[in-house]
């Protein structure tokens, strides 16, 4: 009996050592890029995963500083570039350059990064709850357009025409999420992580019980409810654009923050678009693009772009789910 107990002791001490190999979790939330960002990480070592989370937030701050249109942070950031309009080539930071390059390589005109002037018009009117006149919109729109800036790939410079102003709101967060995710993935102690940056989410690794991640998509007309739950694979990213995220109403008409570059008015072809892709930047880009495009065109873009799948809700509340998601999306209505 004594020997039985001693073998039990050996086995149980082996088991207790196993406790130290149990999964640890850590979560932190901070306010960055005008959004509440929550990063949850699980891994083998408590100190290491906290470290990974902190580094991820540092990565976010890095991108925020370089793409913030409203404040000066670094000598080669977006604020400085915009200030340099009409003054020839300007050397920009790496993140900023990569973002503008990605944008220039896309053929779509419905997403435009040069809408600074018209965005400012709507922002000013939003503060007083008024609607800008067509004249105002036309004048501001004249300062916008894909032709208003150019990239020089040899010298890493950007040239803005006079009066133009870039706003990277449509894609900066997606880019930041990818960057933060790459920082976390470098840390070998991390088994899995979820980065939730408001309308941009990326999942890393497998969930502890081996099942896929389940992400709920907010109901555009009812903040307490969700449209349904999407099952996500490791490494996938999801981005949502909606007319309910930032808007103001005048006389019962909603004016949201996503503008149609062709008209300078808030886009009204959809009330919510959600895109799934392996890159958060791609998801962010297309969620904005599909929001602006007319419904049928948006569906056609999804069909012709193999890297993305999407869920689009039109103003009537009808939900389109692209074929690749029908197996993994469960409606809640």
């Amino acid at each position, binding site marked *: 009996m004594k*020997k039985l107990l001693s073998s*039990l002791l050996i086995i149980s001490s082996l088991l207790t050592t196993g406790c130290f*190999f*149990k999964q640890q979790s850590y979560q932190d939330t901070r306010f960055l890029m005008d959004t509440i960002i929550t990063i949850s990480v699980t891994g083998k070592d408590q100190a290491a995963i906290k470290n990974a989370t902190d580094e991820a937030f540092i990565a976010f701050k890095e991108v925020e500083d370089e793409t913030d249109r409203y404040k000066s942070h670094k000598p080669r950031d977006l604020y400085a570039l915009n200030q340099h309009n009409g003054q020839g080539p300007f050397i920009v930071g790496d993140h900023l350059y990569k973002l503008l390059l990605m944008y220039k390589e896309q053929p779509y005109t419905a997403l435009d990064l040069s809408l600074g002037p018209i965005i400012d018009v709507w922002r000013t009117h939003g503060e007083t709850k008024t609607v800008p006149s067509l004249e105002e919109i036309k004048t501001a729109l004249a300062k916008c357009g894909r032709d208003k800036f150019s990239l020089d790939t040899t010298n890493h410079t950007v040239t803005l025409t006079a009066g133009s102003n870039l706003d990277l709101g449509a894609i900066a967060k997606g880019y930041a999420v990818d960057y933060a995710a790459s920082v976390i993935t470098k840390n070998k102690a991390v088994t899995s992580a979820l980065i939730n940056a408001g309308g941009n989410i990326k999942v890393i690794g497998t969930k*502890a*019980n081996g099942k896929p991640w389940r992400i709920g998509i907010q109901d555009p007309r009812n903040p307490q409810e969700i449209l349904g739950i999407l099952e996500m694979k490791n490494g996938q990213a999801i981005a949502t654009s909606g007319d309910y995220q930032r808007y103001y109403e005048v006389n019962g008409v909603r004016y949201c923050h996503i503008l149609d570059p062709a008209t300078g008015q808030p886009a009204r072809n959809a009330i919510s678009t959600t895109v799934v892709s392996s890159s958060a930047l791609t998801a962010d880009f297309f969620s904005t693009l599909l929001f602006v495009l007319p419904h049928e065109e948006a569906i056609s873009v999804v069909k012709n772009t193999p890297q993305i799948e999407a869920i689009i809700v039109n103003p009537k509340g009808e939900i389109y789910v692209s074929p690749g998601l029908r197996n993994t999306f469960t409606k809640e209505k």
Partner: protein
Amino acid sequence: MPSSAKLTTQELTQLGVLLAVAIVLRIAENFFPYLLPLPGARLGLANILTIFVLINYGTNKAGLFLCTRILLVGILSTGLFTPGFLIGLGGAALSFVFMSIAVERNWFSPIGIGLLGAFMHNCGQIIMAVYLLNSIAVFSYLPLLIAIGIPTGLFTGTLANILLKRIKTT
């Protein structure tokens, strides 16, 4: 049942051979496709030898035998301290405790020991999995595992019985 504290050279040699067989069986099991989406959920064929050693050499030496086998299999195959290793360990531990008590008190024939061992092995695996994965939901696999454990337990018990009748170790 022998319960001498010392390990004779003859016993050492015999156990060495049996250990090799147990390790091979255990690692060979890994090549079967997963029965369940649980890391480390296995048929438990190596138990045949655990029962054989338990009945022929006694609890102490069987305990040593089992620990050595687990460590060696861990180094050679599953990896030490991976979830798969720990789940297997939990199963082996619980199963061994119950089997050795049953053998010392002569509750069952080797066939019954096989059944008991398989059953407790599965319980041990589930308990470890619930703890490691932090999920009560894993308990839902228990009925299925018990069901699978009945035929495998009978099988290992019967084989152990045959071995015990055919191979004399003293």
